[in-house]
Structures are given as structure tokens and as C-alpha cells.
């Protein structure tokens, strides 16, 4: 693996050793488990997804769906008792000639890749910033670690980063507790961009902020993305946010990927029942008032996941055949997006086991209320 240290910021979209449109991050069949005294918990089960340069992919799911585990596992930041049990994470940034499998790197190589190529913006900036270190030191230590600049130049670069996110330079000498929530989050973003990464993983970056500040921060993020050309993996439980923000959206449930497609398709033509229910869980700003339908029930116990589709107990469209299918992603043929994939066989009439599913009887579903309402997008 060859990486160069520092250098001018390339124009976004200009390829390096790879063609534009090729994925920057390619997760294939990643499986992560937590080893506990009572057995293993499959937090992430054979998830595959791609991230292309400059793209915003949203990762949405309930708590415990594995979305954070997926993202942290991809950079091997999970602590014991987590283990990665399968899959690969291919990464090729614009500074590299050939892709590398993050899971096969040594500790030293991984440290070089972390942040420089893949950075993370954490959820709570108050907790993710070192309380006893000044802002300047927290910015310069990562700059110096990766770019090997002397302190003065690193400080100048840090000041430039603050300018970029709209924070006065005098704040370099402040400590995290002296700053407001929005400022701290912007410093986190500035810190993430300090070494010009290719991928920025944002783990619920605005969940802890009020709506007004949220808007500001998101605007800032988009503007920076346009300027610097990095890709974003945006993790959240708020689907409504992603509909506006993301290029593509991936829906996770119980550690597995349920559906993935462009934001427009997910919004208007969702194919998986879970996605449909999520879309109907929040009100629209305009339009007629309608009753909000949540999703009754709870996610399955991942210690001993039931066979077949994990969403079956809470699904209004499933039948007991769904407990015998294999969970895999297939193309949604009726979709305008060629990359629109879903894990639900029921909605794909041309899938072989879908025929079996509908043939084994409709209406006598296992543990499911008969659906009486129209689910319209």
C-alpha cells in the first residue's frame, strides 16, 4: 500500500489510481459478533455495501440494529468482547494505487489509515473531546501524527480548520467545557477533516443538538463535502433527515441489511415492509393529518435469532413461509435505481421463494396481525 503524506487537496471527483464511480469503501459480507458468557451475539450479519467517492450514504435503523457496530467494526474500533467473524472491507482512497482490506492490516498500518483516510465524527462532542486538552492540542496532535508537520505549521493548519467551520481562531486555546454544543460539534467536524480523509463516518452527529443548530451543522457539512470531496457514511435513526440529506440510504434491522437504494427510491418506492413502516413513523410537515403508525413489538433477541427474516414477528405482510427463506438482498426490478436492493421476497413476484411464500397461504401468518390499513408511500 502506498500513501503519500500530505500534499495539495485534489479537486473533488478527480480520480487517482482508480476510476471515478468506483467505490472508495467496499464492505463485503461483514459479520461482527459479541462474545458474552451466555453465548455469542451476532450484532452484524453478513452486511455488504459500497460507498463511492463524494457520496452520502445514510445508514438508518433502530437502536441495536447494528448500524454503529457496522461502522466501527469497519475500522476495527470495537473493543472486546467484539470480534469480526467474516467478510472484508476494501478501501481505496485517491492517494492509493491498490485497494487494501482493512481487516487484514497490521496495527501499524491500521493506525496510518485511521483518520487519514477514514475519519469519524462521534455523536456526543462533549464526550468525544478530551476535557483536559486544549482545542489546539487536540487538532495538532492528529495533524502531526499523520502529516508529520512541525508544531508551528500544524497550529497554522489547525487555525485554518477553525476558519473553515466558522469558529474564531481565538478558540484554539479554549477547552471543550468552555464551548457551546454547536461549537464543539463543529470542532469535531474540523478535527475529522484535519488530514483530508476520503471517508467520514458520522455517527448521529446532530442527535444531541437542537433543531436550529442541527440545520446549521448539516449545512456546514454539505458545504465542506462539496469543497473537499469526501464521502460520508451518515448513521442515524432519523430517516426523515436522510431523505433530504443522503444520496443513498441503507436500512438495517437486527444486524442485517434490509434494503438499500437511492434516497428518492426509498422515499417513493420503498419495497421492504420495515422501510415502509419507518417512513410512516414520522409526520410530514405539510399535507393532511394522518394517524401515525409506529411499529409494535421489539427487535429480536440477537443471542438466538429466529430463522428466516428477522422482521417477521412485526411484519404485517409476512407469512410463515418467510421464516423459511434465506435472507439475501436481491434487485428490485421495478425500481428506477439499478442498485436498489431489498431483502424481502414477498414484494418481488419474480423471486422463486416468493411464489412459495404466497402459495402457502395468505392471511394465516405466524404471530402477525392481519393488515387492514393501506400503506401508501
Amino acid at each position: 500500500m502506498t500513501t503519500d503524506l500530505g500534499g495539495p487537496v485534489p479537486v473533488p471527483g478527480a480520480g487517482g489510481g482508480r476510476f471515478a464511480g468506483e467505490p472508495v469503501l467496499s464492505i463485503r459480507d461483514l459479520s461482527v459478533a459479541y462474545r458474552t458468557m451466555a453465548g455469542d451475539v451476532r450484532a452484524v450479519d453478513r452486511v455488504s455495501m459500497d460507498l463511492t467517492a463524494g457520496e452520502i450514504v445514510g445508514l438508518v435503523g433502530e437502536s441495536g440494529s447494528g448500524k454503529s457496530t457496522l461502522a466501527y467494526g469497519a475500522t476495527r474500533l470495537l473493543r472486546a468482547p467484539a470480534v469480526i467473524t467474516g467478510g472484508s472491507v476494501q478501501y481505496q482512497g485517491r492517494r492509493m494505487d491498490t485497494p487494501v482490506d482493512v481487516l487484514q492490516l497490521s496495527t501499524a498500518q491500521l493506525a496510518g489509515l485511521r483518520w487519514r483516510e477514514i475519519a469519524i465524527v462521534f455523536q456526543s462532542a462533549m464526550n468525544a473531546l478530551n476535557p483536559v486538552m486544549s482545542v489546539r492540542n487536540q487538532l495538532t496532535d492528529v495533524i502531526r501524527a499523520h502529516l508529520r508537520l512541525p508544531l508551528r505549521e500544524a497550529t497554522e493548519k489547525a487555525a485554518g480548520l477553525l476558519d473553515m467551520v466558522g469558529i474564531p481562531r481565538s478558540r484554539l486555546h479554549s477547552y471543550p467545557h468552555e464551548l457551546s454544543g454547536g461549537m464543539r460539534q463543529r470542532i469535531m467536524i474540523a478535527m475529522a477533516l484535519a488530514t483530508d480523509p476520503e471517508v467520514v463516518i458520522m455517527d448521529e452527529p446532530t442527535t444531541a443538538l437542537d433543531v436550529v443548530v442541527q440545520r446549521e451543522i448539516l449545512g456546514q457539512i454539505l458545504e465542506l463535502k462539496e469543497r473537499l470531496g469526501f464521502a460520508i457514511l451518515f448513521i442515524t435513526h432519523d430517516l426523515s433527515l436522510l431523505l433530504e440529506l443522503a444520496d443513498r440510504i441503507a436500512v438495517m434491522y437486527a444486524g442485517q441489511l434490509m434494503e438499500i437504494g437511492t434516497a428518492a427510491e426509498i422515499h417513493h418506492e420503498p419495497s421492504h415492509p420495515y422501510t415502509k413502516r419507518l417512513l410512516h413513523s414520522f409526520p410530514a410537515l405539510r399535507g393532511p393529518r394522518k394517524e401515525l403508525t409506529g411499529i409494535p413489538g421489539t427487535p429480536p433477541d440477537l443471542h438466538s435469532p429466529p430463522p428466516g427474516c428477522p422482521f417477521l414477528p412485526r411484519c404485517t405482510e409476512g407469512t410463515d413461509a418467510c421464516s423459511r427463506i434465506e435472507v439475501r438482498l436481491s434487485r428490485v426490478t421495478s425500481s428506477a435505481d439499478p442498485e436498489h436492493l431489498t431483502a424481502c421476497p414477498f414484494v418481488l413476484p419474480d423471486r422463486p421463494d416468493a411464489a412459495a411464500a404466497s402459495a402457502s397461504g395468505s392471511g394465516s401468518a405466524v404471530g402477525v396481525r392481519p393488515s387492514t390499513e393501506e400503506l401508501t408511500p
Partner: protein
Amino acid sequence: MTTALPINVELPALPGAPARQLGRWRRLPLKAKAGVVLLGFFVLIAIIGPLVTPYNPGYQNPNPALSMNAPSAAHLLGTTQSGQDVLSQLLVGIRLTLELALLVGVIATALSVIVGVAAAFLGGIWDELLSLAINVFLVIPALPLLIVLLGYLPYTGQTATILVLAGLGWPWGARVIRAQTLTIRNRDFIAASRESGESSWRIIASEIVPNEVSLIAANFVNTVLYAIGASVALAFVGVTNLSSWSLGTMLYWAESQQALQFGAWWWFVPPGLAVALMGTSLVLLNTGIDELGNPRLRDANQRAKVNGRRLLPTDPTPVLHASLPPERRSPVIAFMRSFSRSAYVSDRAQRLSAAKPSEGER
């Protein structure tokens, strides 16, 4: 975009995954168990000890040949300067010391719970005053104050000692309990109880105290530890009543009769060792309680091992299906490891298994 395995193939169970549920005793951390066993041993001695003493501990054998004798068949732990049997004194002493410490623990813990909860609940000026009192008594060194206090008291029997020790031993626990009560008090479920009209007393009894049980238990253990240490030190200095046969008194006499210079180790080692072991059992117990309450400490002790290597928190997540070359360690560690046979064996196994893909051991 890839397919999963067909459904009729069982996914291989991840190796090293015991799916059984362990019983409550077995799930306790090892340290807590060791502490309970050790403490139980001493409690047993305290209960039956004085009943089985071979001699009267105070009996001074006039025979000069039996003065400061090494352990023998007749006197299992030897004799003191005045011919008294050390073993008998030890058995009696353990009970006295433990009794005193437990009483002090109970009184002081009760006091600290009352003051701590009161300070947290009353709030305002009362909280300020009580906190000030707590902090002042915490910062004033206890032992010199105890020495002076007991020095002035005309009667320095067991009761006085217990009261004085308890009087200086409650502030530490009160501070901790006050802090915890404040945290709990601000939580939503207390507000909910208040809204539903429960009286403060009921809230305290049914919501707050049950949530602090492990804290109170740890507090009790710590106070007993302090009481043992303080009472032994006070007796050693000579401030408390010298006619009772506590462990500290034994040490006092051993020191003043120059057991050290005469080489009479059997006189001062057993009581000191008893004190140390009782203290150790309490510290073990406390660590166990700590681990029960703090999941991070508990997880830290489940030493994660992958491919034979111990996993540090700063190590990246282990990848089971990868064949990674052996990592270079720091030269100091590598040097020390070169002496270890088990390290050699595991390194060799790893090198062999790197040739073919294999899953790591738990």
C-alpha cells in the same frame, strides 16, 4: 449483493461460545468469593475460638522456663514474656477485634446513611452545613484525634472505643452516599413518585435505599476495615484499655517487652498476620462488590485472548478469519517473553496455524 448460505445449512457456531447460564454464585467475581471465604474463616474463629482456647489467655505461668518459648507441642504458638499462651490470646483477640470492628461498622454505616440521605434530601442550607461538617471531619486526621480523645476520657473501655471510632468513621460513607443520593434524587422516576404523591419517607425507603445497596455494602466493608486498623493502631500505641486481649494489645505487649530483640517472632507475627488477613479479605470483598457494580471493571477481568495473545483495550478489533503475521512487541516485552515456555509454545502454534486458515481460541 452476495448470497447468504442456503437455509438448510446450520451456521457454524462460533468456537468457544458456552450457551449455558451460570448460577449466581459462580458468576460472582473470583475476588469476591475469595474474600467471602477468608472472612468466613475468621468469623468462624471469632465464634468458636474463645471456647476452644487451650489455656486461659491471661494466665501467667510463673515457671521461668516457659517464658518466651518458641512454639512447641504444649503451646502451639509459643508463650509470651510472662508465660501466657499466644494461641489462646490470638483466638480471643480475633473475636474481640472482629466484634468491635463489626459494631463500629454497623453504627458508623447507619450514621452515614442517615446523614448522607438527609443532606441530599433536605438540600439548601442544611445540605451546606452537613456537607461542611462531613468534609471537615474527613480532612482532620483521625488517628491523632482519636489518641487525644481517648487519652482524655477517664474510661477507655470497649464501649468508649466503639463510640469514638464510629464517631470519626461515618463521614467518608456519608459523603459517598450523599453524592449518590443526589444523583438518584434527580432522576425521573423519583419525580414520578413525587408526582404520584408518595411521601418523602416512602420514597427514601422504597426507591432510594434499594438502589444504593451495593454502595452501602461497600461502605460498610470499608468502615470495618478502618475500624480494625484504627483499633489495632490505638491499642498498639497504648491508648485503649490494656486489660482486654485484643490483637492490638498483644502487639503492644510484644513491642514493649521487646519480643523483637529476643527474636520471639511467634508473639507478634500471628496477631499481625491475623489483622492483615482480615483486612485482605475485606479488601477482596470490596473489590468484588466494586466489580459487581461497575461493569467496566468486570469486563476488564474477562481477559480476552485471541490466537493466544492477550488483547489490550488499545488493540484493534480482532479479525478471526484473517491470517495475520505475528505482531512485533516492544523489545522489553519480547525479552521477557523469551523466558516463558508457554509464550514459546503459543507463538509456535500461531506460526503453524498461520499456514492454514483457522479460527482463534477464546
